[in-house]
């Protein structure tokens, strides 16, 4: 039953893609240096802005760096920012959302106000301003900023869920017999929310990968580290579009798009499994029903 979700092709494809990128982030840099024998940061002055060829599968950039090597190398930075930002964001969401739902009353009013505040704040300009003041920005700071400004949606969902779990009979009963609140939250309420928190974490991570790329594109990045975002940004800086160096900015963007698609697929597949109404709309189901209808007609069951 627990592995029910593996029966959806959407979920399987999405998870496989995510696993692929996770492996790339873990072993990619080693693979690039020791298997492909490429140093993604080395400048090959003899091959500046070369289109894809046998020597450089995805070509080289303006600085003579191998694009394939950079894309693989960049996976780690992009995924690390995603992981860190998602950890911060999810932790904040849990810290704000769960107590709000569990305690209710004034605590809820206060926490909910903060959540709504962050929900309506225009996040991107705010991050820009903060980053602008901070000037030099490392990957850690970027992840921190993304996490700190991106927890509100998840907190709202968690609040609603925590509210519903805490109003269940067993939690009420334990509260009434005087069980301590923090014990109840950690051992009774949170375990019921793990599935939800896990899926939130996944989406926060993808969101952060996208956000990192977006911020890097706006010039807020750590220039010393290769990430998909910095690749696109330096391509934009060097007017890669106007000079037709498509192999420079297409691969990193494609990777981001693939990761985003993978997350959407997992999300969609899960939705279909959880919501029977969506499941009934799956094409296999509809096709089977049509076939059944046709054969029934042939037997004279339905036709007049």
């Amino acid at each position, binding site marked *: 039953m627990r592995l029910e979700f593996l029966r959806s092709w959407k979920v399987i494809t999405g998870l496989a893609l995510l696993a692929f990128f996770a492996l790339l982030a873990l072993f990619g840099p080693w693979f690039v240096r020791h298997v492909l024998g490429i140093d993604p940061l080395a400048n090959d002055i003899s091959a500046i802005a070369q289109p894809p060829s046998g020597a450089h599968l995805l070509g080289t950039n303006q600085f003579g760096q191998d694009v394939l090597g950079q894309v693989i190398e960049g996976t780690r930075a992009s995924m690390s920012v995603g992981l860190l930002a998602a950890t911060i964001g999810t932790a904040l969401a849990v810290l704000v959302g769960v107590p709000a739902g569990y305690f209710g009353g004034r605590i809820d*009013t206060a926490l909910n*106000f903060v959540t*709504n*505040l962050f929900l*309506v*704040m*225009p996040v*991107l*300009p*705010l991050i*820009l*301003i*903060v980053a*602008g*003041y*901070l000037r030099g920005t490392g990957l850690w700071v970027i992840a921190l900023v993304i996490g700190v400004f991106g927890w509100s949606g998840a907190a709202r969902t968690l609040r609603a869920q925590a509210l519903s779990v805490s109003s269940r009979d067993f939690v009420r009963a334990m509260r009434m017999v005087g069980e301590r609140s923090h014990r109840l939250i950690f051992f009774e309420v949170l375990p019921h929310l793990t599935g939800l928190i896990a899926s939130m974490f996944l989406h926060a991570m993808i969101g952060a990968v*996208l956000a990192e*790329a*977006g911020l890097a*594109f*706006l*010039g807020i990045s750590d220039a010393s580290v290769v990430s998909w975002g910095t690749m*696109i940004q330096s*391509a*934009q800086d060097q007017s890669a*579009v*106007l000079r*037709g160096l*498509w192999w420079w*900015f*297409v691969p*990193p*963007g494609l990777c*981001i*798009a*693939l*990761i*985003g*698609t993978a*997350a*959407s*697929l997992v999300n*969609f597949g899960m*939705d279909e499994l959880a*919501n029977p*109404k*969506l499941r*009934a*709309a*799956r*094409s296999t*189901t*509809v*096709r089977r029903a049509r076939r059944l209808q046709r054969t029934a007609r042939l037997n004279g069951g339905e036709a007049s």
Partner: protein
Amino acid sequence: MSAATTAVEPSPAVDKGGRARTAARSASRWTFLARRTGFYLAAAWAAITLNFFLPRLMPGDPSAAVVAQLQQVSGQQVDQHQLAAIQRLFGDPSANIGQQYLDYLRQLANFDLGTSVTYFPTPVGDLLWQGLPWTLLLVGTTTVIAFVLGTGLGAVAGWRAGTRFDTIVSPLTTFVSAIPYFWMALLGLWVFSFLLGWFPLSGGYDPDLAIGPNLPFLLSVLQYGALPAATIVFSAFGGWLLGMRNMTVTTVREDYVLLAHAKGLSTRRVLLRYAARNALLPNFTGFALALGHVVGGALLTEIVFSYPGIGYLMYSALQQRDYPVMQGVFFMITLTVLLANLLADTVYVLLDPRIRDQG
């Protein structure tokens, strides 16, 4: 939030004849909106206060940086009056913080957003007014187009869920909406402007023409705006489509839609009054919210295409560290977003009777 504490709980269960109930209902509707307005006022205050404290919390002395930059750009000493204005916005290390805060609020109340550093001595407000029409035109129209297109196609895909149209369009849209916008815009620029040469590479109008309501200029605006507009529509319609598709799939299987079929109503009426009317609710609210992001949302578009709107203004301000302009843009974006949120709430109250009574 004073509105929240004075709110009266609605009592829908009380049955004392129609008039009393109707009165209570419209009262709770106003209470709801009053509470939301109270919240947005509080949010606006929070944003303004954040704007005040951010530069003061940052390492270094932003106001000194602004002054230094000003002197560098203008080549002359900053006078006493200017210095006071700058320090009101970005902090005066010697002054009392409470007094600074009050001064800052007073300055904002007069819509005085300070002076740009890069385009000294142009007031920030003037720069905003210059950029606003471009952004409103570009993003406003594309937001509407993307919404109508996406919602329409989504309704069809949801209604014909599981058919060929749905099985091709929906996964494709999932992919399209996962593409990072700026990258897709770069691709569009490369393919349509660089390779095919159909559109200009950057800008919002032909710089050789006189700006004004003359035909060649307006045509150049259309020509320059077409590609940015297309990229926005392309990246935004997918979200509307998928949302509407899933809402439609869920709604047409709701009991009340089944019952409407059972009643023998025409398919058209079932679809419009029962299915679409309910499926549209979340998308409509989303649309009202999207209108709020018109001003701030075009940041990336305007940067990729060097389009002369608010977003590009903010980007160049960021590059030049023109803090007054950055603050001013943020201030304006926040206000429009909050107004749009209020609009969204109002729309919801009008469209969904259930919200009116929840308070």
